[in-house]
């Protein structure tokens, strides 16, 4: 049953650009897909290790800026007499660099900020994102500051000279996002089901207990942050080469909040949660636009929905649905147990 549903979903996703001619809707789906990838990476931290990182957009933005700068090339004066520059590199290399640098930043931030927990951790991550945003805004020589990086090249794959494919049109970008999203999903799934993933879940449930059975808490938290930051960096790189303009606004706190809402709504700590939450909150603005609701009120609705979900559906949509499903079809299975196994596979 579950397999059939997965196959149908895959078929719909794969064939979508063939039967959907509305390019605007395809654009919305691409952007939603990019944010779903970022939300999946956040879920690894928030859902599986239980650390609420409110600076996640920093990794997304670092990915976007790194990929743009490497593909455009840059020259900066690190000292008045010492100039460092980089020739423009192919986009695929730039994207790899983005993933690596974002991952590295994740590692450093993990090392530094996992000295603290809870409210302190949240505030450190918020501060980190804000510092990165200010650097992007003020280091004009590198980032063009508020003037933004323009004319970012699109991804081209193939052998130079003979055959080349440019990801210029929307269907191509849709498939690109789909493939990266699938890879990220598989990577996270593999990680979560591995020994390391079980260690992360253990320390989410009870950190002191996990430490007492020999789990190196900081090591696994840093590992989760590294992978999570790398995936967020990949999402940022996709964003940069699809939208083709990057300004310091990519570091806006509101994007982190969007990712958090996606994860919480869908169900943190479930693999499918960010997909469901991401689709809802990616497409909801369009649905609200259809009723000609002004953007401010749309955000008010977002905020109110977030509060309502925390009150009435605290574990998210996916665990609630799967519990309902199991309770209905497998009467022998106690519902609490079913929800638990879904939350911690």
């Amino acid at each position, binding site marked *: 049953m579950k397999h059939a549903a997965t196959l149908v979903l895959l078929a719909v996703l794969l064939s979508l650009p063939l039967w959907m001619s509305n390019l605007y809707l395809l654009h919305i789906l691409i952007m939603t897909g990019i944010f779903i990838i970022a939300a999946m990476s956040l879920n690894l931290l928030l859902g599986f290790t239980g650390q609420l990182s409110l600076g996640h957009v920093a990794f997304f933005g670092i990915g976007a800026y790194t990929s743009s700068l490497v593909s455009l090339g840059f020259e900066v*004066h690190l000292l008045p007499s010492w100039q460092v520059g980089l020739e423009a590199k192919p986009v695929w290399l730039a994207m790899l660099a983005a993933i690596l640098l974002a991952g590295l930043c994740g590692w450093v931030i993990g090392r530094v900020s996992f000295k603290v927990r809870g409210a302190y951790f949240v505030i450190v991550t918020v501060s980190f994102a804000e510092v990165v945003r200010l650097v992007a805004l003020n280091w004009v020589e590198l980032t063009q500051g508020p003037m933004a990086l323009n004319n970012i090249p699109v991804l081209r794959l193939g052998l130079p000279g003979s055959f080349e494919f440019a990801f210029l049109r929307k269907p191509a970008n849709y498939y690109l996002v789909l493939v990266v999203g699938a890879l990220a999903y598989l990577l996270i799934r593999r990680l979560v089901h591995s020994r390391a993933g079980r260690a992360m879940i253990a320390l989410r449930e009870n950190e002191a207990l996990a430490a007492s059975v020999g789990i190196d808490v900081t090591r696994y938290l840093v590992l989760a942050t590294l992978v999570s930051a790398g995936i967020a960096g990949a999402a940022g790189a996709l964003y940069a080469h699809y939208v083709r303009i990057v300004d310091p606004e990519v570091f806006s706190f509101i994007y982190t909040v969007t990712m958090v809402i996606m994860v919480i709504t869908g169900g943190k700590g479930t693999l499918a949660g960010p997909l469901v939450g991401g689709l809802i909150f990616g497409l909801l603005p369009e649905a609200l636009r259809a009723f000609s609701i002004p953007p401010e009120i749309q955000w008010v609705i977002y905020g109110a929905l977030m509060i309502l979900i925390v009150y009435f559906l605290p574990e998210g949509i996916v665990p609630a649905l799967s519990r309902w499903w199991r309770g209905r079809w497998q009467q022998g299975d106690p519902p609490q147990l079913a929800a638990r196994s879904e939350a911690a596979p």
Partner: protein
Amino acid sequence: MHLLKPRYVSAGLSLPPSRDCGQRVDQLLQHTLNALILGGTYALLGIGLTLIFGIMRVVNFTHGELYAFGAYMMYLWVMLVGTNFYLALVLAVALGVLLGAAIELLLLRRLKGADIDTTMLVMIGAWIALQNLEQFTWSGVAKSISAPFPAAPLVLGPISLSWNRLFVFVVASVLIVATYALINRSKLGKAMRATFQDRETAALMGVAIDRIHTATFALGSGLAAAAGALLGPVFVAYPSMGDLASLKAFAIVILGGLGSIPGATAGGFILAFMEELGAGYISSGFRDGMGFLLIIFILIVKPTGLFARRERIG
């Protein structure tokens, strides 16, 4: 942090080398005075946030929105209704207290016993809703508020000071002292301190915890609204002004140690000094970044903050 260095060098020091030493001292004095004045309002923001965290264990993301609310209430009463400036100030703070009490009663009351992440998510939701309601009500255009002070600054030898800022500093100081008195001298303050030390024991001793929570949130919100109402006429009111205020308040509170009122007071002044000197001598672009660098630095070097003794696990 080394990322910032090139900017420092390429921007150059803000003082041309031709200036003589006396002028530098004057400039330093001027920066110090500005910082002192700014520090008063920062301390107000920080004390409000640290009270709410210390007593309720709530990371209050709506704090900055109360600050913006205070500024917009000044705009409403002074510019639209045309009330007296000082009366408007009182009204703005009173409305801030009411809004804070409403948030506590409507949103936080039912979350009693929830973990800190859950309340944080609810507060983030409330923050988004409040900020966008503000934007919807007042539009995105910045509003300036006129104050009944002479435009000519007060000149004291080499340094000058605007009357409005002086007024802000005096009122902020009075409010800080009043808050200290309330916490340390009144019966309500005693109950607050008891709740802070041990919620269960305080409840057993007959402290009505629910009412203490409402009072705390209202007081903290009132202080934030006061900071906004005071600074609104100095700067301008705009919808996203609360974001930076929230983040700065977090920086101040982290610096002083979460839950510590003297820490928040000192933190407010320290942050103001860092910003003022950073903007004056390094680069004005990083003025608002100082707080965050400070947070990261403090948490690496002395994670307990300057004044708190407790474990850093929220």
